[in-house]
């Protein structure tokens, strides 16, 4: 994923707080993907406006982590979702 790519959740895919299990899930057609805190941190920044570069810079600053690592892990995570049609990129 290039820094200027803008990822977004397509219609029918949304973040949801699971109040019974007290954690975040990504709800998609006939699927519910449980998110760890990192997955949630990434997806809560996927708003269809911020670029991949901006959101990874924000993550790196927020979690005080090396940008290269953050970008690599985020790209891998988002690519996995895109392959399942849970994420689109403009």
């Amino acid at each position, binding site marked *: 994923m290039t820094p200027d790519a803008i990822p977004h959740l397509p*219609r029918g895919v*949304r973040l949801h707080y699971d109040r019974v*299990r007290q954690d975040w*899930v990504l709800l998609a*057609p*006939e699927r*519910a993907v449980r998110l760890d805190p990192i997955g949630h941190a990434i997806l809560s920044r996927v708003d269809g406006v911020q670029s991949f570069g901006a959101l990874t810079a924000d993550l790196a600053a927020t979690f005080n982590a090396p940008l290269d690592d953050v970008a690599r892990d985020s790209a891998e995570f988002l690519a996995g979702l895109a392959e*399942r*049609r849970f994420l689109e990129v403009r």
Partner: protein
Amino acid sequence: MANPPIAMLAELTHRCPLSCPYCSNPVELTARDTELSTAEWVSVFQQAADLGVLQLHLSGGEPASRRDLEELVKAARDAGLYTNLITSGIGLTEKRLAALDAAGLDHIQLSLQGTDAEMADRIGGYKGGFARKMQVAQWIAAIGFPLTLNFVMHRGNMHQLPRAIDMAQEMGARRIEVATVQFHGWAMLNRGALMPDRAQAREASRIVAEARAALKGRLVIDYVPADYHADYPKTCMGGWATTGLNVAPDGLVLPCHAAQTIKTLTFDTVRTRPLAEIWHEGAAFNAFRGTDWMQEPCRSCERKTIDFGGCRCQAMAIAGDPAATDPVCVKSPHHARMRALAEDFAGQSDADLTWRVMEKTSE
């Protein structure tokens, strides 16, 4: 205490304009006058969300046969549930789809009985059904609902699989479910006409594997292979009473849609017992939960927490014991007979179809 369920299948009604010979509804269908009311369903949705259900599948019969479908979708969304409509498309109009959109419907799963009118209308037993479905698919795309095409496959239409995969792409579907008929309910009456042979089942698996590779990232393919020809059973329901539950039109709560074929089980209804209590304490749910109920060869099998012994209803139907190993399994003493049955049914080239019918008096 058991983990809460993730998914609930709400069979809003058994009424349906189609009469598919593999319908998963029980052979004894529930009459309209015993269906849960709007208010009762709304309460069930709220209880389901409180229990931990995330995914709600609105099914039937044909859910569009319920005039209050739009209201039910809205109530389910208000309860916090992800709403999936499982439909043949018949009974949906452009206006109703717009209302479902406004109500917050998340996703549509559209069934496909065949890839042309001749096949689809014959299997569905409804003339003009295919043309109507194609129109509905266009309206769905125009609104932008995420779509899954559900191609129900059997010996008579397996050769149409490549075209079904093309159609899913043409319709703009993100997913296609390629589901070989599972033999429960009405399909049990039609094994001779519907059972694929081994070569066909293998060919379908090959086509799916190839399409998955070619369409990676564009079309997701979920595949339910021909169970009778397998060596290990399916992980039915993800394990009995672990993941999902069904609510029948009259409010009976079932661990799976075929559970009523196990006559030794007793079921509770949401009309007299809270849903959470039924899930955690109901006799039918606890009957095969976990692994304590297992017999040999399941009990000492390394796969027992992978497939949970397979399908209880199939164990009942073929082995005559719902606690037996699913006879699909190579370790089952009934496996050879299962294989012979599959071959026998697959070879019945002149078998007639029995279409689903609802008693006229119950309409």
